């Protein structure tokens, strides 16, 4: 009887206590809030809070957010005029939808202050989104590379150079391992949380067809899907579950893998003697790769714009950029030589990226530009095409016809112009 009574009485008491506790939270804190979709993993966020922000001239509160709620929050704050966030850290594509809505503050006055940081002009141009104003300052960059277990190296086909493989050689390599071990040891991040669509958009399509949208259903694309279907016969069937390739590499489920540098780093950093990093393979049209750029922006109406600008200046300094590199696997935005005293795993990744960028037939393919909220649907076209052609063995030409129509509808909806690797277009980009 007594415990029941207790429960009855405690309920309302708890509720009142909770309401009372909520009170002080309403008071606004003085520290500027830095909202970021990057450096989200627990250990990276911890590094930002305890290392990078420790010596910062501005004490800021770092808050990591999922891309979906990031967008909602920025738009909600702009709609109500009640601003909490002072600094935004996000990928190029995540900041882009805010520009036509006028949610970002131009940072042109900040640019001269960053002159000493030697941020390459090509990156700075990206931060303008094709307008006259600088809307974000490049913060970090990354890309996708390959990593392999050293056990796989003896099976490399004759005459193949690890730093300049072709997709055909990759297929022969994996086939040789399959034959010798009875296992399919090549892996791709084609699971629900994987980034497989970037492989098609930035690597396979441009390497085989020289374009993406314009050549989506070209004869080269049909040939490409047929040869990728052949390659897939050597791919570990668990690939459709993989999200971060560092896990199957570490557990030995796969020996060769393609993924984002940040999603391979755990394997390369923990066991640098067991794994090698190397550039993505090349196709008939060259070595295509996708640079990923994250930027820092200040929302219009930010409560602490001056402090946010000071924080951008601090984060762009070469010494801070090195700290950022150590905290994550994103590379500095400024043109810095990779420092020699870097830990071996990071150095391996840095070297592989440098080799890829310096390859004579290197062909950068940008993340989709101008799609805004339709980006997810655009990515899904590639995943659907992959599923139908490679996993369900449908006829490539028929599938490409249907999916190409769907892609054109998306492009028409948002009036997106062509982006690299496709040649610039006057109007909406057209699927030929």
């Amino acid at each position, binding site marked *: 009887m007594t415990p029941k009574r207790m429960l*009855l009485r405690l309920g309302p008491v708890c509720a009142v206590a909770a309401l009372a506790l909520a009170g002080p939270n309403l008071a606004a804190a003085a520290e500027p809030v830095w909202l970021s979709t990057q450096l989200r993993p627990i250990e990276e966020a911890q590094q930002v809070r305890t290392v990078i922000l420790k010596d910062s001239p501005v004490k800021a509160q770092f808050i990591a957010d999922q891309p979906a709620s990031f967008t909602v929050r920025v738009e909600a704050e702009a709609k109500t005029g009640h601003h909490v966030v002072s600094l935004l850290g996000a990928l190029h594509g995540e900041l882009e939808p805010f520009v036509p809505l006028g949610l970002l503050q131009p940072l042109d006055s900040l640019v001269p202050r960053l002159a000493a940081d030697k941020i390459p002009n090509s990156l700075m141009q990206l931060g303008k989104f094709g307008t006259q104003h600088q809307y974000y300052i490049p913060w970090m960059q990354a890309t996708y590379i390959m990593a392999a277990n050293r056990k796989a190296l003896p099976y490399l086909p004759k005459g193949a150079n690890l730093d300049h493989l072709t997709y055909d050689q990759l297929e022969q390599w994996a086939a040789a391992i399959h034959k010798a071990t009875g296992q399919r040891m090549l892996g791709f991040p084609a699971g629900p949380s994987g980034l497989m669509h970037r492989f098609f958009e930035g690597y396979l399509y441009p390497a085989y067809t020289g374009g993406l949208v314009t050549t989506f259903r070209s004869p080269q694309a049909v040939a490409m899907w047929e040869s990728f279907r052949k390659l897939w016969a050597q791919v570990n069937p668990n690939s459709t579950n993989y999200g971060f390739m560092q896990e199957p590499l570490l557990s030995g489920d796969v020996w060769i893998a393609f993924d984002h540098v940040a999603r391979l780093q755990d394997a390369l950093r923990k066991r640098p003697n067991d794994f090698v990093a190397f550039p993505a393979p090349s196709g008939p049209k060259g070595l295509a790769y996708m640079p990923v750029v994250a930027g820092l922006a200040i929302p219009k109406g930010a409560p602490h714009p001056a402090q946010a600008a000071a924080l951008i200046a601090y984060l762009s300094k070469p010494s801070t950029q090195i700290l950022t590199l150590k905290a994550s696997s994103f590379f500095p935005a400024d043109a810095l030589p990779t420092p020699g005293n870097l830990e071996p795993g990071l150095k391996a990744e840095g070297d592989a990226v440098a080799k890829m960028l310096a390859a004579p037939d290197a062909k950068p393919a940008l993340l989709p530009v101008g799609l805004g909220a339709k980006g997810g649907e655009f990515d899904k076209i590639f995943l659907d095409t992959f599923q139908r052609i490679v996993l369900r063995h449908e006829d490539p030409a028929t599938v490409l016809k249907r999916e190409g129509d769907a892609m054109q509808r998306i492009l028409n909806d948002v009036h997106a112009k062509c982006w690299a690797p496709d040649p610039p277009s006057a109007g909406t980009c057209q699927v030929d």
Partner: protein
Amino acid sequence: MTARRLFFLAGVVTLCAWVLVPLYLIALAATGGSAVVHAWPKPFLPTGALAATLAPLARFLSIAGVWPALLTSVETALVCVAISLTLGLPAGYALARFRFRGAVLFRVLVLMTRAFPVAILALPLAVTFIHLGLYDTPVGVGLMHTALALPFTILVSASLFQAIPAELEEASWVFGCSRLGAFRRVVMPLALPGIAAAATFAFVISWNEVFAASVLTVRHRTLTAYLLAILPESPLDVQFTGAFLLVVPSVIFIFLVRRRLFSIWGIANR
């Protein structure tokens, strides 16, 4: 007889292993760091000194902001439990005891609130909460979670009150109880374990919800929004440590309330 007993024991062992082996593997990986996560065969016990085995756990708990987030989670969940019981119990009682027009429609409508995906409502919700001054407060998130938990509270408590014979209540009226007194002295004590179950359910819904919690807060995140939402993107050993720290409190909780748990089922199924 011996054969039957053997079968029985084998069944018991299988069921125990079914539950305990995963827990054991989680604990092993949580304390062993990444070497153990990817090792095969795994060591039977964590190797190394005690300090080394506890280090991953300590590191997880020392992540800046974990404790305030935990407090916010508890506050939010209590707000959710308090409001959903205050609103849900009377509604459930009414559904169970009174015949009124549209009772069936009401049941369906209650469930309809769960039919709208929070992701679509996120922007208008955030805007409204900012206008109301509830943005970034545990009360605000608690209100949102109440909306998610209320359908369950109403339907669970309706079936709960239905299971308590109305004759008992009527008998207490005969002996001089008022309606409220009868509810308090007769119905409530019988329903209490079930109500506790409904409250636990509301608590868990609030505790586990991620999206609304991360859209409606900036500085004052609940634990799930602060940590667990990003756990899947962390290395496996960190995931195991997080899983271990989440599983242990619930195992202890269930161990403590195991008898009550059976009585909850007893009354709910009668």
